[in-house]
């Protein structure tokens, strides 16, 4: 958050035209500081060149290390603690039978669901925020979580459905909400503010619907509904891992392939058009991907609060890089969720506190901090 400093550097404007023309090429090139362009460029034969932002690259590497470390620790945490070395040994296939069952069948899928859900929410949130050009344009605020909840509650309350049916209901609810928001907000392109305002309206309606469904439910269903609504990784197994993994394997490359177009979209539709981005196509594709990622993550773990909102913002502050920061946001989301799950188990014992409570508390504190600093910077 930088305060604008408008008075600086007028001197170049006073330079006369003649002087400007006189300067020779060598001087011209020296005038541009080397640090003007972020990152290093890796060039290979055949005109290949890839630009790497060193700081963002480091952040991603550190986040990955943190996520994996937290995962190993998390797998070792529980009623039957396992040392990290044994966890690693077991994961590599050299553990004893008892540990193998606990690690591979009980705790590993739960951690994988956590990583995938966190990554999906982080990426989905970064996409939504970039497309709406607004940090508040994240799926939690736009009502996608409420939509998934409505779908899940219908299954729980009206049909007493199985876990799979509840997940399916949540997925359909999320996708339908995403579609509704897009249709309602769409008029010659989705504009940031309209998207956010329509999303808030949809969220309010769905919250009312969800409240109604819970009051209609009997006590058992209502308790189940409330647990689902908090967002939890309890009892997640391989059945949740595979669909999420396949979805991510398809969507993540697709999204990253369009990331450069998204960077151009940040500067406004007109600029993106002028630069040759197919604006509507890129935006629709990325929105669909973001809705799918968010809905699938919510179907797997419930509406885990604030990860989609905070992960992209935290990642951005770490990389200090402009742009949507998609990969850092994804890694940040995965790290956040696994660390939050570990924190909830560590502080309150296994399966006592749903992870959504921890992310909600962390996210809420973070949001207040964000608003306070933005206020200081004079932006709100």
């Amino acid at each position, binding site marked *: 958050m930088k305060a604008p400093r408008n008075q600086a550097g007028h001197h170049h404007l006073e330079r006369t035209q003649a002087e400007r023309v006189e300067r020779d090429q060598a001087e011209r090139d020296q005038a*541009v500081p080397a640090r003007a362009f972020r990152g290093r460029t890796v060039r290979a034969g055949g*005109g290949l060149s890839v630009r790497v932002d060193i700081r963002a690259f480091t952040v991603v590497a550190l986040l990955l290390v943190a996520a994996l470390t937290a995962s190993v620790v998390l797998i070792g945490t529980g009623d039957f603690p396992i040392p990290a070395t044994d966890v690693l040994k077991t994961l590599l296939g050299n553990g004893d039978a008892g540990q193998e069952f606990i690690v591979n069948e009980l705790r590993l899928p739960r951690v994988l669901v956590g990583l995938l859900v966190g990554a999906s929410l982080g990426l989905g949130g970064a996409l939504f925020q970039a497309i709406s050009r607004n940090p508040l344009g994240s799926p939690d605020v736009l009502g996608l979580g409420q939509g998934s909840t409505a779908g899940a509650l219908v299954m729980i309350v009206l049909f007493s459905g199985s876990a799979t049916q509840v997940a399916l209901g949540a997925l359909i609810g999320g996708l339908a909400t995403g579609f509704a928001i897009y249709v309602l907000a769409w008029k010659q392109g989705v504009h940031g503010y309209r998207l956010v305002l329509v999303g808030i309206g949809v969220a309010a309606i769905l919250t009312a619907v969800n409240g109604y469904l819970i009051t209609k439910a009997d006590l058992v269903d209502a308790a189940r509904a409330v647990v689902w609504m908090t967002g939890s990784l309890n009892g997640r197994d391989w059945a949740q891992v595979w669909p999420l993994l396949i979805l991510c394997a398809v969507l993540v490359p697709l999204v990253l392939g369009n990331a*450069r177009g998204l960077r151009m979209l940040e500067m406004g*539709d007109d*600029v993106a058009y*002028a630069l040759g981005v197919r604006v509507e196509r890129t935006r629709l594709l990325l929105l669909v991907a973001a809705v799918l990622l968010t809905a699938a993550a919510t179907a797997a773990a419930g509406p885990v609060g604030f990860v989609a909102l905070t992960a992209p913002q935290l990642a951005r502050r770490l990389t200090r890089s402009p742009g949507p920061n998609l990969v850092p946001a994804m890694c940040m989301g995965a790290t956040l969720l696994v660390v939050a799950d570990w924190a909830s188990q560590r502080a309150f014992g296994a399966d006592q506190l749903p992870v959504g409570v921890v992310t909600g508390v962390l996210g809420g504190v973070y949001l207040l901090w964000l608003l306070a600093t933005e206020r200081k910077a004079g932006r709100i």
Partner: protein
Amino acid sequence: MRADGKMSGKSSGTTSGKSSGTTRTGADGGPHMNDQGSTVNRLSAESVTLAYDQRVIAEQLSVEIPDNSFTVIVGPNACGKSTLLRALSRMLKPNQGRVLLDGQVIQSMPAKKVARTLGLLPQSSIAPDGITVGDLVGRGRYPHQGLLRQWSTEDERVVRESMTSTGVAELADRYVDELSGGQRQRVWIAMALAQQTPLLLLDEPTTYLDIQHQIDVLDLCAELHEEQGRTLVAVLHDLNHAARYATHLIALRDGSVIAEGRPSDIVTAELVEEVFGLRCQVIDDPETGTPLVVPAGRKARTTAAPAAGVTKG
């Protein structure tokens, strides 16, 4: 006046660009041969009907942008100048008619190919949070890049040159949101230059700038036109700026071209009254000799008959 104004028709050739200040559009200068080998200008709109939803802005509007000209579009508010610019840059698809770029319908061309030929500096541009001048200008290279060709030495050279020719090279590592309005506009122009397009459209590039920076930006445009030989099309509000800098002026009213041609040929008191509904005198600019519009005093305007289109539009 009208006869002169309509001089640049379909057959109008191009001028040498460097000496455009003294060259009459369409009168001399060898005809430009484009890729198709015909003698048409690179960018033109052929009887286009432009509308937002159902609101029609212009009907059957035809405009030719003379190659190597600094064309300025003027007209009262809501006359369709920006709309015309959006159509020329393929952001608005005409309901009828077509916009041609190098003989091809612009909508049918690949987006990146258009973006390598025709640049646009829109009014609504947003500098991303925390972006440096160098990075923002670098984004202008997008149409020349690909997934595996992200930053060539050519990209870097062009970006440096663009920053130097717009005088923002020293600001390269500064954050864009720290800059003044005038500096920021130069940075956006540098980004459009980095796109390396022979044609560059600018939508009200001087709006919100104080007089010093307005002139500064227009000087820069004139330089780009004269030294780099680019074809510039700008929408401007200030008629006097338009008359001073344009080599080709297009006056629009209610979505129709009222007159077009060299400012000194077409800017008259009658034209200003017809286009803007303003009584005025047109005198020679003491600095440049171009037409200078001096609005009539308040008393003269209120006592005179209401403005009316004397000549047909």
